[in-house]
């Protein structure tokens, strides 16, 4: 009974958000294009033969960056910006009355956006293969499934981190600047611009303890068939989710107590 109710709620939310997202398909296409930085990086790597020093062939590196592009496409999170806007405009109050955590709404929004984005990402990948026909490969089904799971876990980690930041909106008006701050280490350490293998030893010694390499580097390595520790990576992802989730619940309950509606 209860699970049926939850299913129906999630299904309805998804359906509403998907049709909402379809309205903005041009926007989403543009957003997909804005994610092509990994390809520029690939160009620098291969054009200057930088990959020889890290023992990755041109083909493997181009697959890596293509997968990094894909993983990034399906793990983009912007919940803090939506939540900030909603909380500044006072839209959070009606959401709080509903018997559903408002973050489910944002969660459905993100999932719906990913579904809308999927065809555009495929088109970009298609163009990538036209320019780099030698890097075409078909991952086997098990690996594909595992990398979808790990991409989703990476999305969950980022969603939880951003939701925690978003809850800071209850205390300060501009939580998004904190998010922009957090985005910098994510950009440079996650493997989007350079694979983590290529990092100098003094960074590699501690980086695997942080969540960053599990956001892009790990799923991208998994999907592209580069060497990686599958069980270790997945368990670290799950561990981070288990660490972040209680933190989110705590800050959410503290925040809603602190929340005062507009005009009160």
């Amino acid at each position, binding site marked *: 009974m209860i699970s049926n109710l939850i299913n129906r709620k999630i299904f309805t939310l998804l359906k509403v958000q998907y049709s909402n997202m379809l309205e903005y398909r041009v926007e989403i296409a543009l957003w997909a294009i804005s994610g092509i930085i990994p390809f*520029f990086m690939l160009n620098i790597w291969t054009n200057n033969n930088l990959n020889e020093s890290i023992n990755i062939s041109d083909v493997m590196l181009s697959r890596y960056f293509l997968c990094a592009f894909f993983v990034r496409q399906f793990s983009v999170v912007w919940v803090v910006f939506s939540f900030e806007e909603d909380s500044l405009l006072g839209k959070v109050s009606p959401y709080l009355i509903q018997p559903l955590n408002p973050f489910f709404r944002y969660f459905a929004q993100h999932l719906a956006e990913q579904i809308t984005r999927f065809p555009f990402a495929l088109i970009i990948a298609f163009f990538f293969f036209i320019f780099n026909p030698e890097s075409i490969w078909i991952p086997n089904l098990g690996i594909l499934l595992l990398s979808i799971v790990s991409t989703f876990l990476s999305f969950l980690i980022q969603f939880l981190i951003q939701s925690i930041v978003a809850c800071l909106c209850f205390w300060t008006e501009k939580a998004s600047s904190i998010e922009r*701050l957090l985005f910098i280490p994510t950009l440079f350490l996650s493997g989007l*611009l350079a694979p983590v293998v290529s990092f100098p030893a003094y960074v590699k010694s501690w980086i695997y303890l942080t969540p960053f390499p599990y956001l892009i580097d790990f799923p991208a390595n998994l999907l592209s068939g580069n060497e990686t520790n599958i069980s270790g990576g997945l368990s670290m992802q799950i561990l981070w989710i288990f660490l972040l989730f209680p933190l989110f619940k705590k800050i959410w309950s503290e925040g809603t107590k602190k929340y005062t509606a507009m005009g009160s």
Partner: protein
Amino acid sequence: MNLRKYIKVYKKFLHTSLASELEYKTNILVDLITAILSLVGSIFLLSIFFQNNGYIGGWKFEQALIIQAIYTILNGITNTWFNPNLTEIVKHIREGTLDFVLLKPIDSQFFISLKKINPSGFLEIMIGFLLLFLCIRINQIILNLSFLTLSLITISCSICILYSLWFFISTATIWFVKTWNAIEVLRSFLYIGRFPLNSFSFSLRIFFSVFIPIAFITTIPSEVFLGLSVLWKILLEVIVATVFLITSRKFWLFALKFYSSASS
């Protein structure tokens, strides 16, 4: 069109927007940390590229640092003026408030491009200059008058090109209403301005000098600093900047003909 009136109006703009931005003091601190971190991150990325290579696209590490410095200065300028103002155009058009701007007895492009200011960008500009002075010391560049004029000319041309690019995309909103993400695309393309143009493959080099002249924005000023620049390149940059500025003006006047206010 008298200059004194515009200077007076600009002083008022400065006063009001500084007053409102200084309300969020911690925000400025967070933005400062973000700027420093993103510079550190880029230098870290560069150091990965130079780990086992002495040269990238014919540039040494110390020389490539100049590009980072100039990028940081230009990015600071973008964050101070272009970003807060030109993203506002999107809002003006969507909410129909552009009418109020057009009715004012003042040039609309002036009003729209300079209304707001974000003081945290100043700090980024200062960081950029600090790095630039450091680079001048490291590369043992001799300062003289002709060098100073040339670098001033090229940097101001870069600013003009950058402004025009932002302005073009924001003006396109008149037709497409929601081009928020087009700005994201521009941002991600501008990101490659952090690297010397020669480090990219031939086709990308053509793309970034003909279609989107990012090449001109950072690489040519840096070449001037290193004394590598040839006269025709500088002349070309001046021409490109003038063409861009004039076209952006024409484009704005042209686009306004298509603007219909909210209720018409």
